[in-house]
């Protein structure tokens, strides 16, 4: 599904290298987790994959089902099935959440040569998905993320994901800021979307989330590299011992 090879990324504005050769392969239907200390480059990796400005790829490649991601515009990557749940979702004043969703859904359908979803079908779909995530009608009408609590923003990201039905989902610290109940809701939302043709890359600091969303593979990222890859136990090890031993081992 997702294949990243030797990916090196610098900041565009200043001479600073953030990713220093990332290798990562996520197979179809798999759930991978990435853990790692603050500032190790996890969000940068997710931004570069989704096409944010400000980064310069100096080496390596990233493909989604064989298609070169790095060559596409952000919206083309989205239409190809890539989705990023932002660590810090963006507020868009004056644009209704529902409007935003419908515009996004139809933009992707159009890009794939499908007909637009009718207003009725769309509404039915949103309501059902929102209900699962305990997002009330009021929140659907409000402007995108404006005045949403931290946890509400995260749930809203998952709602977008559920509506867009991507095949490669990257979740950047979606668990941060969620209370215990919301964490369960979000995990259930994610688990409901798990399927053979859909893969997840879950960036998190906590084992807690991985109790709910069981990963197949866990990667540890540090200083712009994947320094260790293992099974679900690796997350437990981090939870118990921190990163010190792993970092020393990698040296």
């Amino acid at each position, binding site marked *: 599904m997702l294949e990243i090879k030797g990916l090196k990324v610098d900041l565009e504005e200043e001479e600073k290298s953030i990713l220093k050769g990332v290798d990562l392969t996520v197979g179809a239907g798999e759930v991978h987790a990435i853990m790692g200390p603050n500032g190790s480059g996890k969000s940068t990796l997710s931004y570069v994959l*989704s*096409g*944010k*400005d400000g980064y310069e790829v100096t080496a390596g490649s990233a493909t989604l089902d064989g298609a070169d991601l790095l060559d596409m*515009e*952000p*919206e083309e*990557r*989205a*239409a190809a099935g890539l*989705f*990023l749940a*932002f660590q810090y*979702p*963006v*507020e*868009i*004043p*004056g*644009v*209704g959440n*529902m*409007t*935003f969703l*419908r*515009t*996004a*859904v*139809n*933009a*992707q359908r*159009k*890009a794939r040569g499908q007909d*637009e979803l009718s*207003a009725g079908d769309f509404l039915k779909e949103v309501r059902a998905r929102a209900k699962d995530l305990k997002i009330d009608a009021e929140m659907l*009408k*409000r*402007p995108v993320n404006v005045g949403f609590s931290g946890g509400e923003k995260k749930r809203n990201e998952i709602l*977008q994901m559920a509506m*867009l039905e991507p095949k490669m989902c990257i979740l950047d610290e979606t668990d941060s800021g969620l209370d215990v109940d919301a964490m369960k809701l979000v995990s259930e939302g994610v688990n409901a979307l798990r399927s053979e043709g859909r893969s997840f890359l879950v960036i998190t600091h906590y084992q807690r989330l991985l109790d709910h969303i069981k990963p197949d593979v866990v990667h540890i990222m540090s200083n712009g590299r994947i320094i260790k890859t293992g099974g679900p136990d690796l997350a437990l090890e981090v939870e118990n011992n921190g990163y010190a031993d792993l970092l020393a081992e990698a040296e």
Partner: protein
Amino acid sequence: MTALDQVEVKEGVDQETVDAVAQLSGAYKYGWNDDDIEMDYAPKGVNPDIVSLISSKNEEPQWMLDWRQAAFTRWEGMSVPNWAMLKVADIDFQDLYYYARPKSMEVKPKSLDEVDPKLLETYKKLGIPLKEQAILAGVEGAENDLPERKVAVDAVFDSVSVGTTFQAELKKAGVIFCSISEAIREHPELVKKYLGTVVPPSDNFYATLNSAVFSDGSFVYVPPGVRCPMELSTYFRINAENTGQFERTLIIADKGSYVSYLEGCTAPKRDVAQLHAAVVEIIIEEDAEVKYSTVQNWYPGDEEGKGGIYNFVTKRADCRGARSKVMWTQVETGSAVTWKYPSCILRGDDSQGEFYSIAIANNYQQADTGTKMVHLGKRTKSRIVSKGISAGRAQNTYRGLVSMHPKAKESRNYTQCDSLLIGSQCGAHTVPYIEVKNNSSRVEHEATTSKVDDDQLFYCRSRGMDEEEAVALVVNGFCKEVLQALPMEFAMEAQALVAISLEGSVG
């Protein structure tokens, strides 16, 4: 006033728009010119003979001609105002046509077959439905087989009004909606009583010129206690080359009445700038309410700033009676140069004025627009919400005056003035003038300037929208409060226009 407290989000509106936007492509949609419509011109230039000619073409009575000539004499002694933040090439006022009309309108047609098909074609391109085209073209009886659609339309093509729809139904309600030339002939007592009482012929350079040479425009009178049964709407179109369009609109809302009036404008693409100098006067008596909405989409000139409409307009509402209300809403996306300040004279006690504005300037467009709220009566209230968007090399200025007179005790104004910049070569300017001459009134002014945020655009694009769609969405969000103030049909058109006029402003 309802609109003051209303913050409800109309979810349907912007969705429809995004849909509409998706369907629209190409830059200036109304830019064709119907050069093969045969026109009847008066000679170029302006002088007392031209003024007389216009008056006689409209079969006006002597008093009207005298009024025009007095205005002309005054105009000759005036000079072009230069205080606005606009760079305008000198206009040679003697090198313009002041009167042009389609030849086919010399004798009113009796059936659709008699109407110049070119004229009908133009209406069709403007999106005016076929049945209404027939009515506009003056075909007798066409009104009877109209489907449900409650917007009466008056269309002004260059200098003349080519017809008004729904006259009969309006008449039943007692509402007079016709061209101003017809009103001068048929309702001289009303015209005499009100014309020039809000914008006197001496008001300013362009208004004075308009008073001398206005060729047509719309007239509305809503009698006491009547709620106008439908929206009234006027389409203005400048077609002929080197022609100035000088319409005159006069709206009178008598005691306790209500009317909502829409104005839409288009013009063909021409390399040479065209002049538009209109005057709109609104009189609002006790307990009456008028909503006036404009979507101005004149040709803005090309990417290099060549051609386009010079739009110098004087619009003013006089809230004469106690508790009267006026609401101006404008979406200004077109014109090379816009110079426009719809104003409210809040004379009656407890009267209220509102001004909602979106002004978009792209490429080399220049917009200098805003409002004047003149508080004369006690406990008068006004609200100003201005959204200025600049892109390309455009300059966008908000110029507003809020004046509280000594007798306007306990009056209030709230002004919110937001500017949005797209790119780094455009400019936004805010010039608020505030005068408070009593100590019980309150004036609040808030102003912000921001850039279209890259993070917002990336967020939209990461969800699958292309760059232009993303910009349109973010900008429509920025304008939300104003779009909500528009009647439904107009709101959709306006949102689509926002997207079109910003095409090519990013990337």
